[in-house]
Every structure is written in structure tokens, then in C-alpha cells.
């Protein structure tokens, strides 16, 4: 117990002094210009994080409500939180807000607001898997501190839960007032929104005085508008837009980040034949030439994957050997096992998935396995998960997060999204050990063991990562939080 207390103190120390948000005195530093952003909204978007679904809506929420902590490939970054301390048994976390943290209307934020806000957010099915572990009845608040009681010990609560997004609003009511970098001035999802810099922002008034977010659904239009100077930042572009923008010297195309990238997956369903056999799964993984697929389908914004999630984060086990195409070996296994045909249900839930399935079918043809592709309407894909679990394989995607966060939703017996149906005692045991220790080195060992098991035996052929494609006028300096630009600390001095 004593050892655990020491470790939790160490963890608190790291969070307090290791990675904390640099306070930017933007008034003296750089005078930025207003910025216009092109993003897609849904007509029924609201100011409520529980129901927002569109990328534009997500950006708006983050700008208004901020987050207690945010994610960075190297670890969590404290935002509204001044400190987060775990207790010795890792089943309670005390969050202290930054001193004098107030909402944009001047009302002071309290610890009770944290509890109320997270309780409200946890009612959303989308966030239930993240916040379902918090016991709100046993959680307590005092002034600007909240102690969140957890139902079971969780050493990665900060990185895997709070850092994903932990918005706070007065009394847990998300009606547009928050402690974020910007204040909503006017707008609607159809025509866009105008936000102005929050004078009371805890890190100092943002350098960018005004943000206009315009609803532009089409990638081509965003790219064109960026070229004519009608917008300064285009968010959510496709590869054809990149080709158009590459020629423009005044426009910068960031290389994209793996944090929040889309992992392209082929689920090898372990519930049914032929992929209920681990050897057949291994053969399938050896059939696909990932480098070729990434080059053809994802281009410069793609990265080869190795059947595991979490690439790019510091806890990702880089030393697990990359699966490479070995068609001879794969063909031998398929022949031994008598596998000559299987079906892939393909759906463009992320654009390009049907093409990926078609390309994989060609690869499987080379090992004398015929793949039948059944296309499914992306709008009905998730409504038919029950039927999909009876199919041999289907296309799927993941948002790339830390390995621990992914394990929780992907490979445990109780995981919401264990779509391949694969789990094992190795995974369950190591995960239990991992969430019970705050020793990073020890945790890394467990993460490695789980990842290795997923890599060698799991039912997922994760072949590539598709990074988010954005472009902006030169002169914008911003950090990203899971592909969302964090404009509260950004500067924008457009080059003439």
C-alpha cells in the first residue's frame, strides 16, 4: 500500500509539474488576426456535448467548454485542472481547478460543476464507456475541488478518460456558457458561428480575437475557399483537395497527427468460421500488403498499421514486429485449413472502406482465396451489428487513442465495442494488473503483453492509419487535440 501511495504521489507530481499548460501572455506576445474556419455541421447540432455529432459541432464545444485535461502523444496536458491526484488505491481522483477559474459570464467554476458536468456527459451512450466507471453518488466536491470516486481502480483514468474530453459547464448545464477560450456571439449550424476571445480565459485572453466557423460540407469548396482567402483554415479535407492546395505557396498543409487518426480495420470475426481459427487469422494478416494499400488508398496522409491501436502515443509498443505480407506462407495455411472463400461486408462508414475491401479481395485472390464483397449502406451499418456478428469479416474503423483506452473498449469481455469477439485470459489478467498500478514501467509491460496477444492472435487486421487532413494559411500556429485545433492558445499572423 505504501508503495502504491508513493507511486500515486509520483504520478501527481508528474501531472503537476511535468506536463502542464504553459500560460501564454498573448496581449504582449503576438497580436493575431481573426480567423475563419471551414468545417461541417449537422443541421440539428446544439450546444450540448451529449448530442453533438458533427466535426464543426465538436470544435465549437471544445472552444466553449474547454477540458480539464487534453491528450498529447507524450501524455496528458492539464487544461482547466491545476492538479489531479490519485489516492493510494487508484479508485479516487481529486481534481483541483485552476485558481480563480471563472466562466465567460464571470461566475466562478466549482468542484460540484465538475461532478455535475461529467455526470451529465456520462448519460450519453457515446461517453458511457469513458465515464461509466465514475461513482457519482460517492463523488464529493468542496470549493474548486472535486473527488471522483471510481467503481474500480483505474491507473489510466487521466489519460484514457479525462484527457479524451472532460468539459465543464455551470451546474452541468451546457447552454453555451463555459470556461473555454471563446465565447459564443451568434450563429446557428446552418450558417455558422461567430466566437469572440474570452477575456476571462484562465490562460490569458486568447491571441486570436475572433473565430468564425462556417458550415462547409464539401471538401472541394473548403479547398477553393481557402485559396480565395474566404477561409483561413480548412478542416476535414480529402486527398483530391490536397493535390489542389499543394500548388499554393501561401497555404500550409500540416503532415497530420496519429492522435485521433482513423485506424482502418478489417474485422476477422472470431465467432464464426473461418476466422474462429487463430491460424487462419494469421494467414489473413500475412496476405495483405499493407504498404501497398496505404500508398494506394491513403497516400501521404496514411501510415502503415500493425494490427494494434495506439500508434504514435508514448505507451504504444513499437518493438512488436511489423506484420509483413508473406503470401507463400499464407497460401499454405489457407490450403491446409481448406479455406477457399469468405465474405467481407464492406461499408463506407469512413470513405474508402469499400475500395479497401476490393483491394484486399485482389490480395486474397493471389493466395487462391475468393472474397465475396457485400456492400452495406453506411447509414444502416451500426444498426446491423447483430447480423454483422454472423458474417466472417467486415470493415470497421477506430479513432486512434492510447493503447489503454483502446483496450477498454476493444478487447475485454465487457468491452462495448469488442466487435471481433476476441479476448483472452492474457488480456484480462494483464489489463487488471495495468489498471491497478501507477508504475509506468510496470504498466508498459502489461500493455506490451496485451498488445502482443492482440497482434498475434486477435481478430483485427488493422492495416493503416488515416490522418486527418487540414490546411491553413501560413502564419497559424496551433496545437491539435485529437485532430481538433486548440485555438485558445494559437496565434495567427497571416503572411501577406
Amino acid at each position: 500500500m505504501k508503495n502504491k501511495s508513493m507511486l500515486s504521489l509520483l504520478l501527481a507530481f508528474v501531472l503537476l509539474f511535468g506536463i502542464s499548460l504553459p500560460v501564454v501572455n498573448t496581449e504582449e506576445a503576438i497580436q493575431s488576426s481573426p480567423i475563419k474556419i471551414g468545417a461541417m455541421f449537422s443541421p440539428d447540432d446544439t450546444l450540448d456535448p451529449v448530442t453533438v455529432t458533427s466535426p464543426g459541432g465538436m470544435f465549437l464545444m471544445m472552444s466553449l467548454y474547454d477540458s480539464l485535461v487534453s491528450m498529447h502523444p507524450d501524455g496528458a496536458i492539464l487544461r482547466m485542472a491545476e492538479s489531479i491526484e490519485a489516492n493510494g488505491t487508484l479508485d479516487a481522483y481529486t481534481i483541483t481547478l485552476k485558481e480563480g477559474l471563472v466562466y465567460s459570464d464571470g461566475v466562478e467554476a466549482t468542484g460540484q460543476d465538475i461532478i455535475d458536468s461529467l455526470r451529465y456527459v456520462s448519460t450519453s451512450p457515446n461517453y458511457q464507456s469513458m465515464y461509466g466507471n465514475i461513482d457519482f453518488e460517492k463523488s464529493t466536491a468542496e470549493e474548486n475541488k472535486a473527488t471522483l470516486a471510481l467503481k474500480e481502480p483505474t491507473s489510466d483514468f487521466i489519460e484514457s478518460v479525462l484527457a479524451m474530453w472532460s468539459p465543464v459547464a455551470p451546474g452541468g448545464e451546457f447552454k453555451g456558457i463555459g470556461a473555454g477560450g471563446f465565447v459564443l456571439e451568434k450563429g446557428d449550424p446552418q450558417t455558422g458561428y461567430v466566437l469572440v476571445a474570452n477575456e476571462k480565459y484562465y490562460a490569458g485572453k486568447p491571441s486570436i480575437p475572433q473565430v468564425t466557423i462556417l458550415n462547409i460540407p464539401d471538401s472541394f469548396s473548403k479547398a477553393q475557399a481557402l485559396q480565395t482567402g474566404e477561409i483561413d483554415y480548412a478542416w476535414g479535407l480529402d486527398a483530391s483537395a490536397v493535390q489542389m492546395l499543394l500548388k499554393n505557396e501561401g497555404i500550409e498543409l500540416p503532415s497530420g497527427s496519429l492522435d485521433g487518426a482513423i485506424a482502418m480495420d478489417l474485422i476477422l470475426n472470431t465467432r464464426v468460421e473461418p476466422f474462429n481459427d487463430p491460424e487462419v487469422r494469421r494467414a489473413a494478416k500475412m496476405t495483405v500488403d499493407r504498404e501497398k494499400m496505404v500508398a494506394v488508398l491513403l497516400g501521404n496522409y496514411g501510415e502503415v498499421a500493425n494490427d494494434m491501436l495506439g500508434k504514435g502515443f508514448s505507451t504504444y509498443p513499437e518493438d512488436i514486429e511489423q506484420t509483413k505480407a508473406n503470401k507463400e506462407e499464407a497460401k499454405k495455411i489457407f490450403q491446409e485449413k481448406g479455406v477457399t472463400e469468405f465474405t467481407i461486408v464492406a461499408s463506407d462508414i469512413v470513405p474508402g472502406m469499400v475500395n479497401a475491401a476490393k483491394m484486399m479481395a485482389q490480395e486474397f485472390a493471389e493466395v487462391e482465396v475468393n472474397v465475396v464483397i457485400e456492400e452495406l449502406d453506411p447509414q444502416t451499418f451500426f444498426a446491423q451489428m447483430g447480423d454483422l456478428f454472423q458474417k466472417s469479416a467486415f470493415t470497421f474503423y477506430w479513432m486512434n487513442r492510447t493503447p489503454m483506452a483502446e483496450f477498454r473498449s476493444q478487447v475485454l469481455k465487457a468491452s462495448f465495442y469488442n466487435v471481433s469477439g476476441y479476448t483472452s485470459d492474457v488480456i484480462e489478467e494483464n489489463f487488471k494488473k495495468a489498471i491497478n498500478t501507477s508504475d509506468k514501467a510496470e504498466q508498459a509491460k502489461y500493455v506490451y503483453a496485451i498488445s502482443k496477444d492482440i497482434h498475434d492472435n486477435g481478430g483485427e487486421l488493422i492495416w493503416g492509419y488515416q490522418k486527418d487532413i487540414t490546411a491553413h494559411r501560413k502564419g497559424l500556429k496551433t496545437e491539435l487535440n485529437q485532430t481538433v485545433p486548440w485555438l485558445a492558445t494559437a496565434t495567427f499572423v497571416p503572411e501577406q
Partner: protein
Amino acid sequence: MLKKLGQASLGKLALAIFKIFVIWLLAVFVLGLLMEALPGDVASNKVGKQGSEAVAALRKEMGLDRPFLDRFFFWLGNFFKGDLGKTLLTKKDVGVIIKTPLISSLSITTIVFLGLVFVSIPLSIYCAYYKNALSRLISRMAVLLSSVPEFVLTILAIMLLCMELRLLPVLSIPGPGKTVWENPVSMLMPSLSLWTICTAAMFRYLRVMIETYVNTSYVREAFLAGLNKNKILFIHLLPSALPGIAQILASTIPYLLAGSMVVETLTAYPGMGYTLIQAVQSRETPVVIAIGSFLIAITILCYYLADFLGKKNKNEGGIL
């Protein structure tokens, strides 16, 4: 006598209104049924990944577990009270959601419609009636434009007018929180694109129709009788062609109001087409039915008006 005539007209009007209402009601009901028949719903879209129990719980919460008829008549009751309901997922007023798209779409529909009436139709008639180098050039251009897909035409227009000549903005957004009338420039590009698409599409129909009328015996006899060419056109030919022209015009209205999704998406114009498609994709039945009920009403009224013109023309001795 006059009183009797008045009563008869009122009776006819009441019957027409009743017929319109019944057709509207049936069409809205069918629309609701079609939405019901689509695979998946808001609940399965939202929590489908989490299994059937989660979907069932959310469906119950949203009231989607109630029978369709029950929900339809509940919606209808509220509709007649002026309440369009709330979205299933975000609980937002449907009236608020469709207000901006409705104003935007009605505005460009009016502009394009006027353009069709005062420019496209006279141009089509001119090309069909007067055979010369100019009319042949216009006809060929119309054929060319009608053979180009809608999205290509819009992209080409954007490239030329917005990127090369910089005459118009790429984005046809009026600005956050503004209506299109607060920034009328936002209507130019979508109006121009839609006008071009509609003109190209209806040009051939109109030209063939006018040419058919030119070849009718009564028009030929008028020529043989030595009547003035313009007089034949305006006094003999056009009144007969009017019902057909009205039908063609009426058929463009539903497209202009909500079928212009491609143009709206490419120009980022906040119209009803984009809102409708988004609502269908996310299975937001209240939004779909609200927009649909409006479109159906407008469409029925337009066709009734076109039919009325045809009947009036026939009663007044029109040919064909």
C-alpha cells in the same frame, strides 16, 4: 342567378381545397411510411454499436417504440396547432432548424423562377419560332449544358466566376446568424447555377412543344392567311401553349426547393436540399416530414395551378 353562380364557384373551390388536402395528407403519410421502411433509425445510428438492448432503450426513450399510426397522428395533431415537433436526438425545435433553409430555398426559388419566366421561356420560344444563326447557337449551347452533369456544371461555374474572374465568392453563406437577404450576394452563385441547370433542362421540352404548335393546322393557316408573324405567336400560339409551359414550370418548383442538394453542397448555401438529405441520413423523421409536408403542399398547389390554367384555356377555346 349571380348568387347561384357564386355558390357554385365556392363549392368548386371548397372541393378543390378538400382534394388538395386529401392528396397532401396521403402523400405525407406515404412519406412517413417510407421513412419507417428505411433500415435503421436514429436510435440504431446512435447506439447500434452497443447492441440491441441499448438500441431498444433509446427507441423507448425517443418514443419510437410506439406504433407508426400513433406517432403519425400525434405529429399531425401538433402540426395543425403550428407545432412541427422536436428532433429525436437533439430535442431541438424542428421549426427552428428549417427556418433558415426555408427562407434560403424560397428566396432562390423565387429568383430562379422569375429568371425562367422572364428569360428562359422567351429565349426558348424565340429559338423555336425564329430560325436564325443566333437561335441555332443558343439551342446548341442549351444541348451542351443539359448534357453536363449538375455537379460538373456547378464546379465549372465556381472555377470560372469565383476562382478565375473573382466576380463572386466561392462560399454562398450569408454569414453566421444572418439570412440570405442580409447578404444578397450569397444568393447569386446558387441562383445562377440552378437557373442554368433548369434552363438547359427545360429548353428542349419548350422548343419541341413550340415547334409542335407551329406545325398545327390552325397556326399554318394563320401563316397562309398572311397574318403578322408576331401576332400569330402572341395571339394564336402562346395562349394554347401556356398550359404546357405552366406544367413544365410547375415541375421545376420541387427541384428548386429541395432537389438542389448538389448545388447547395458545392456552394455551401444553407438551403433545404442539404437539410433534407442530412435529415434522411440521420433518420430524423420529424425534420423529413416537416420539410416534406411543405414541399408536397407547394408541389400540389403548383400542379393544380398549372391544371387550372389548362382548363381555363380550354374553356376559353384554346386548341389542343
